[in-house]
């Protein structure tokens, strides 16, 4: 980096080290990080959870907990030029002055970043009031102006609305407006699209791009999604275990990664179309007459309604859905949040009541089923939950957790009797036997999800329901868990319902893909059919919104998406 470049950088991090005091002693979260962000540039910091990317970004605003200790220097240059200030050593008053004005923050979860008891206009104006005197009318005018610029329709009217009156994507726009209103030199965006659906994510990424192009704001983008990086970033820093392992221009990084770790990270990102050949090969291996065999799960005009409270209308989660899963088949269920995909999975497992229509699971009709008569069927169904952190009883060891189904269904009298089978199970999910003695919190996310898979497979189920099993995991871990899932499915031959919001993940595993939209099944077919020639406009939009981990390809897809949006 030349001397000229350094002069134009808005953020200059030099040899940053952050350590935390914890119950287990001092932990170094970040070590020897040096980064520079130039004006009008999008720098993406990528890495797995625990790699220190969030800590690095938050330290730019000194937003770390009291237990943190920061060393090194973070120089923030005001937008209009002037003397750079070192965030690490500034006083409280100066820090307040610099927050919002020189650098602003966009948080991950827009629904918690906004205060529910104030209007959005008030919350945007709060930043203005904190940095100098503004009259009420002026503040309101500025708030309306910035809301219009981030694409909130009818801002004169909506400025007086409360956060709950906006959708998730609109809330994130408001949070971005809040950051933009003081015209900061740099915006720190901490996973700004992780909590949003793919279609909304595309809109927010578009807005962030406009922040850079129209407002000239630099953006520090923290993300684990390589598609988002390819879509938005100019330059990328890859972090691993608190250090930066590689820094490069976005095209260079994707086309010619230098470090082994970066190569692994890129290789583990699932790509669309990878599963087509895989599915065809599986279809060819099916025995004769398979298509006529009795389905393991068969839904006909399935309808599930959550009763509304206090004069509010009922919520129809699933509306007239029909599908079937045949023995040994993997059905991928895709949809955004609120589309009813999890509800269907829960209904099959008997956790949610069926309101209307028919749902036959392993020969039992679920509409009006009694818990007592369904219990024998339960041992033929396995369930893998979304969040491995909460699906294990924190007070039981892994062995006890995995042995639970064996004991409940009388396959083993006690823990000692189940141990042999548990050891075999742990081995089959590639967990060392000694991990059985550990407690769930002593395992990493990926290890926990393996144990969860072991528990689900303990009774050799005929049907496995996997509800977003990898959405809480890092990409590199996700790739390994998906591979394991595929191997086990091949070996044990169970039928599976694989629920996910990520089309690329579903494409990897599923024989057929079903797309849900607002409780209705809009499209169903093989991966090649659904992804190759989508029929329904929603599927088309979903496909176009999905960012792919390749900057050039993504730029092309983005133009397609813009066309689709304007038409």
């Amino acid at each position: 980096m030349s001397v000229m470049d350094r002069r134009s950088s808005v953020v200059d991090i030099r040899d940053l080290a952050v350590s935390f005091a914890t119950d287990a002693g001092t932990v170094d979260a970040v070590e020897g990080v040096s980064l520079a962000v130039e004006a009008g540039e999008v720098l993406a910091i990528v890495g797995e959870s625990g790699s220190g990317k969030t800590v690095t970004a938050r330290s730019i605003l000194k937003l770390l907990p009291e237990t943190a200790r920061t060393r090194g220097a973070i120089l923030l240059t005001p937008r209009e030029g002037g003397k750079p200030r070192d965030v690490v050593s500034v006083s409280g008053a100066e820090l307040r002055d610099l927050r919002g004005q020189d650098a602003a923050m966009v948080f991950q979860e827009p629904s918690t970043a906004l205060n529910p008891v104030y209007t959005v206009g008030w919350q945007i104006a709060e930043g203005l009031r904190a940095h100098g005197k503004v009259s009420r009318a002026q503040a309101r005018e500025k708030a309306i102006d910035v809301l219009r610029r981030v694409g909130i329709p009818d801002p004169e009217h909506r400025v007086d609305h409360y956060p709950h009156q906006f959708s998730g994507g609109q809330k994130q726009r408001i949070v971005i407006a809040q950051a933009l209103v003081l015209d900061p030199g740099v915006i720190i965006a901490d996973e700004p699209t992780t909590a949003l659906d793919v279609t909304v994510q595309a809109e927010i990424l578009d807005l962030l791009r406009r922040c850079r192009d129209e407002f000239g704001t630099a953006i520090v983008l923290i993300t684990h999604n390589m598609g988002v990086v390819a879509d938005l970033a100019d330059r990328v820093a890859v972090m691993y275990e608190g250090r930066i392992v590689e820094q490069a221009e976005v095209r260079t990084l994707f086309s010619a990664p230098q470090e082994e770790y970066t190569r692994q990270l890129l290789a583990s990102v699932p790509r669309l179309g990878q599963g087509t050949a895989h599915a065809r090969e599986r279809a060819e291996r099916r025995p004769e007459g398979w298509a006529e065999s009795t389905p393991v799960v068969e839904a006909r005009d399935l309808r599930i309604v959550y009763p509304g409270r206090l004069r509010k209308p009922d919520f129809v989660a699933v509306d007239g859905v029909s599908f079937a899963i045949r023995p040994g088949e993997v059905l991928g269920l895709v949809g955004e949040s609120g589309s009813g995909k999890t509800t269907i999975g829960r209904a099959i497992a008997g956790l949610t009541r069926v309101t209307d229509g028919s749902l036959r699971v392993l020969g039992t009709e679920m509409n009006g089923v009694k818990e007592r008569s369904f219990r024998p069927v339960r041992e033929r169904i396995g369930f893998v939950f979304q969040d491995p952190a909460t699906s294990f009883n924190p007070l039981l060891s892994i062995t006890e957790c995995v042995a639970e189904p064996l004991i409940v269904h009388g396959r083993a009298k006690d823990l000692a009797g189940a141990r042999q089978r548990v050891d075999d199970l742990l081995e089959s999910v590639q967990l060392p036997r000694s991990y059985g003695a550990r407690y769930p919190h002593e395992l990493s996310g990926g290890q926990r999800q393996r144990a969860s898979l072991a528990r689900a497979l303990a009774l050799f189920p005929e049907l496995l329901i996997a509800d977003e099993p990898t959405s809480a995991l890092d990409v590199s871990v996700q790739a390994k868990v998906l591979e394991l899932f595929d191997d086990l499915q091949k070996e044990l031959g169970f039928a599976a319902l694989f629920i996910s919001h990520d089309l690329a993940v579903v494409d990897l595993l599923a024989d057929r893909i079903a797309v849900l939209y607002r409780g209705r099944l809009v499209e169903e077919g093989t991966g090649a059919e659904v992804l190759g020639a989508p029929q329904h406009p929603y599927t088309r939009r979903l496909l176009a919104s999905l960012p792919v981990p390749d900057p050039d390809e993504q730029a092309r897809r983005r133009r397609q998406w813009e066309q689709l949006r304007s038409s």
Partner: protein
Amino acid sequence: MATATSAPAPAGGPADPERRRRTWRRLPVVRQLRQSVGLQRGMLVAGLVLTGILVLAAVFAPLLAPYGYGQLRDAQGPFGAQLHPSGKHWLGTTVGGYDVFSRVVYGTRTALLVIVIAVLLSIVAGVLLGLVSGYFGGWLDRVLVVIADAIYAFPSLLLAIVMAIVISGGQSSLVGGILAAAIAVTVVFIPQYFRVVRAETVRIKAEAFVESARVIGASNWRIMTRHVLRNATRTLPLILTLNASEAILTLAGLGFLGVGIQPTAAAEWGFDLNRSVVDVTNGIWWTSVFPGVAIVLTVLGLTLVGESLNDLADPRLRSRRRAADEPPPPGAVEPGGVLIADAVEGVVA
């Protein structure tokens, strides 16, 4: 964390023998004591010392006290009433002619018995009711919550008086008096345990691991005892210590109002205070000050323990040592260690 996943063997992970050696450090109070720093540690230690003195005094009362709690005379004849503190009677004698020091020491026994019985009874009943009510819900839950609210609405001392009279008819022997006081306290406290356990149960019932147990096909009883109960009782030690101090106050209140235990049946601080009311105006201070101080110190000790346990249980309230200036010695932090990584995430989030 990818490395941790791909690593085939637990490199330097806690081995079994090491774990066993550490178990005593994981005991409830011991662990918190090791965890605490600064002012919080001071509070906890002070509370533990005061509570320890209470327990020791109760256990060794016959050795510590020079006379019995109901003793009015020794070999040289009657003690005499309202004597100044002296070598023979360290803290003087009461208007009834009892030795104040002996009664204060023996009073710890009554106090401790009432605490233990009251807390045990209310925990068993409250936890059971709360668990059933929270887990099954429905009309049973609604009825129990209404009853608990109704008990809350009563002034607790009035309720305790009524219970004490119902149980012992106002005349109290040692066992009858202690049971009356303990049960009176129990009735007041059951709703508290009920509430806490019910709220926790309702929360835990929605957790994924309870659902995973249901998907496995576990029976309601198994889910309640194995998965819900153990997770729902985490906050109980905190309420327990705080309630113990309230139990002492209720007992003293009952004794002061004359529905407690007779002086010949057991020593009881509240009763002694009642008898010393007249003394205060006559300038006889020792009959009221010492039982009063005993009550204050007992309540203070238990409250300090409870409050500091409460603070320590909450990571947001718990103070930690700031990260040291110098880098930690190599090997102190296991790189890629799962536990540690989780702790950092917790702090950041």
